[in-house]
């Protein structure tokens, strides 16, 4: 039975968590003490995970979902914020002070093959955590404990599996062994990082079923990290959608799927291939890819790809460079050569600023560039980019472009979910 305090306190309470990795930069740069910047892998994440709950962290590669999971387990160092396990702060404990908590939180990785030491038989591998934590006195006790764990994950008769090596096992069996090792210390929280992504379609269902069974039998709480919305929909009570180190939408699974709010969530849902032969490949998808996390876009990180972006979303100089590139990609070679010559070095507008100086090409003037920009705007006035442009003026050999100041949206309640998007400001919770 749980005590009253446990009922009220979330098992995991993460507040404003950041994990930044600093870049080393060049040798010369380090000599003169220049900061090479940092990758903001997790950049201000807050959520709560309650006892017995399954929370899905869903995002593309580079969204920071894996780093977030690793930070919670202290496999990566938090650079800020707090992590509370059952009310106790664990984010900044020393390694030795943290050790008792390790037994309470375990992780399962994506690649079961890489998670198992090829030179250890299953008895040794699955029992390893018990030995490390000094919880078994002799070999007989080890066999009993490992046998119990293997039995629970379905690797039975267990005697047949004790002396098997990872290379003797199929992918599904290896992931079962990894799960056995994860539960052997009796953890409360299991972080599962893409536990079925590397398995064949035909065994994914079995491993997910096993995880649900273990959750019921052992009273586990799961943080399920995945890029796959379909398994998340089936498996999770709540879902957090991540993009570039932030949670952009979080709420009950049913609400997220029935009425996705953030434009990123909407496009993710539309892009999943569905085994329905009447559906065709969707066409109106966000352009481009997840940008660099060293210098994320200003304002809302999703704005350069967002089909519904508008003035306040954080338009900046780099978006202008993208605009030129998109236009030129679709042009015939001769037309491209002509327009390219009008504009000078694009590297000069590849900066994260809300004031761009667009240089003219050799022999061209600022007026020529301004004329080109006007042509581009007239060709597609509905392009969201133009809603963020405040002013364009020709000055000698360049054009000065200024942008509306953007704002970084924060998570706000909208219905029974929370969403970080300017489109939902002023929406009240139901």
């Amino acid at each position, binding site marked *: 039975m749980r005590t009253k305090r446990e009922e009220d306190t979330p098992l995991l309470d993460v507040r404003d968590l950041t994990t930044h990795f600093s870049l080393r930069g060049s040798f010369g740069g380090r000599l003169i003490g220049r900061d090479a910047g940092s990758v903001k892998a997790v950049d201000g994440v807050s959520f709560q995970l309650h006892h017995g709950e399954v929370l899905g962290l869903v995002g593309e590669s580079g969204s920071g979902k894996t780093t977030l999971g690793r930070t919670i387990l202290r496999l990566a160092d938090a650079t800020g914020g707090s992590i509370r396990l059952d009310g106790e702060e664990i984010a900044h404990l020393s390694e030795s002070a943290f050790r008792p908590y390790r037994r309470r939180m375990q992780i399962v990785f994506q690649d079961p093959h890489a998670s198992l030491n090829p030179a250890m038989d299953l008895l040794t591998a699955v029992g390893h955590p018990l030995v490390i934590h000094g919880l078994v006195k002799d070999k007989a006790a080890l066999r009993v404990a490992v046998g119990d764990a293997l039995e629970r994950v379905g690797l039975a008769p267990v005697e047949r599996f004790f002396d098997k090596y990872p290379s003797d096992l199929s992918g599904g069996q290896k992931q079962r062994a990894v799960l056995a090792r994860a539960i052997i210390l009796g953890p409360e929280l299991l972080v599962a990082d893409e536990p079925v992504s590397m398995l064949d379609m035909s065994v994914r269902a079995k491993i997910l079923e096993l995880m649900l069974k273990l959750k019921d039998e052992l009273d586990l709480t799961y943080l399920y990290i995945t890029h796959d919305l379909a398994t998340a929909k089936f498996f999770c009570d709540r879902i957090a959608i991540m993009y570039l180190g932030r949670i952009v939408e979080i709420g009950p699974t049913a609400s997220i799927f029935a009425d996705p709010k953030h434009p990123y969530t909407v496009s993710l849902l539309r892009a999943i291939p569905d085994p329905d032969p009447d559906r065709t490949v969707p066409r109106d998808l966000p352009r481009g890819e997840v940008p660099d996390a060293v210098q994320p876009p200003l304002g809302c990180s999703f704005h350069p790809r967002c089909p519904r972006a508008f003035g306040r979303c954080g338009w900046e100089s780099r978006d202008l460079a993208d605009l030129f590139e998109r236009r030129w990609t679709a042009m015939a*070679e001769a037309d491209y050569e002509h327009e390219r010559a009008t504009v000078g070095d694009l590297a000069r507008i590849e900066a994260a600023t809300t004031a761009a100086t667009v240089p003219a090409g050799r022999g061209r003037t600022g007026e020529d560039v301004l004329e080109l920009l006007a042509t581009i705007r007239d060709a597609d006035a509905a392009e969201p980019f133009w809603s963020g442009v405040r002013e364009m003026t020709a000055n000698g050999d360049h054009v000065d472009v200024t942008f509306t100041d953007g704002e970084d949206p924060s998570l706000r309640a909208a219905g029974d979910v929370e969403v970080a998007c300017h489109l939902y400001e002023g929406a009240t919770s139901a």
Partner: protein
Amino acid sequence: MNPPVLSVRDLRVWYGTARGAVRAVDGVSFDLTPGETLGLVGESGCGKSTLGRGLMGLLPEGTAIDGEIHYEDRDLLALPPKQQRSVRGPDIAMIFQEPMTRLDPLMRIDDHFAETLKTHEPDLSAQEIRTRSLEALGGMGIPPTRFRQYPHEFSGGMRQRIMIALALVLRPRVVIADEPTTALDVLVEAQILGILADLRRNFDTALLLITHNLGIVAEACDRVAVMYAGRIVEEGSSRDVFREPQHPYTQALLGSIISLSTTELRSIPGAPPDLSMPPPGCRFHPRCDQAMVVCADREPIEERPLPGRRVSCWRYGPDEEIPPGGTEPLVREEIAVADEA
């Protein structure tokens, strides 16, 4: 119907191991017509990638290939290796799964294109090479401003698009794509599938799409061939096969998909067989919930129960070949977790 551009007959690929010969592809036949996309699906280890490599002549040493690959009235496998290469090079192209490992990190993008074009079309001028390359890259959404950059300066999705542009710059008539989007995120995957769909519409390119993702097949393929243990067990239009799968393996495979409409988890018991000693009779019978006595005993004969559909399963006959009592349900051994995939 259009005459096929590629016609494969009774193709076999096998290689030796310590356990004996592994028949990775064991008597596969199919046709591919211009502008058509054929999806080739199955679990890992069913031979689908080996089949793709066999078609391209990219099998590792120590592998044997036999059968017929007809391209433009010629049987490629009957030609000497050098002539095989001169046909495949410009006309049959391949797109691989890992774009990162297929570009030379020390070569600029424009040099990759120049090398490919010069090898197969030595008469092109430098200007023609540039125009052709930019056209191919533009079609894949790579800006011309990045033509002189190195592979590491591109993201994974862009590198895969560069690889596709490289495969297409020679204007091949057949493209074999082996899991082209498996390493990519779902949004980029959808972008690339859109590009591949445009390809067959605009250039009449025939596409063989090898994938384990049945969702992709449903959305992107005209026809689908389901492979199990080195053989095609069912083939038909993807609409029909997804609506009404006939082979029990196809039914099980479709049932195991976890999609947004999944409310109940289902899986296929057991694992695909070791191809050095496949089970007798129908190779799927140990995992099949509809197996009959005849299935454990005799290899199924291909039947065409519906127009445009072929299926190799005794449940669809021919009845006259089934010995008396052969249709009784087969008593199967229980499949334990110990035997799962």
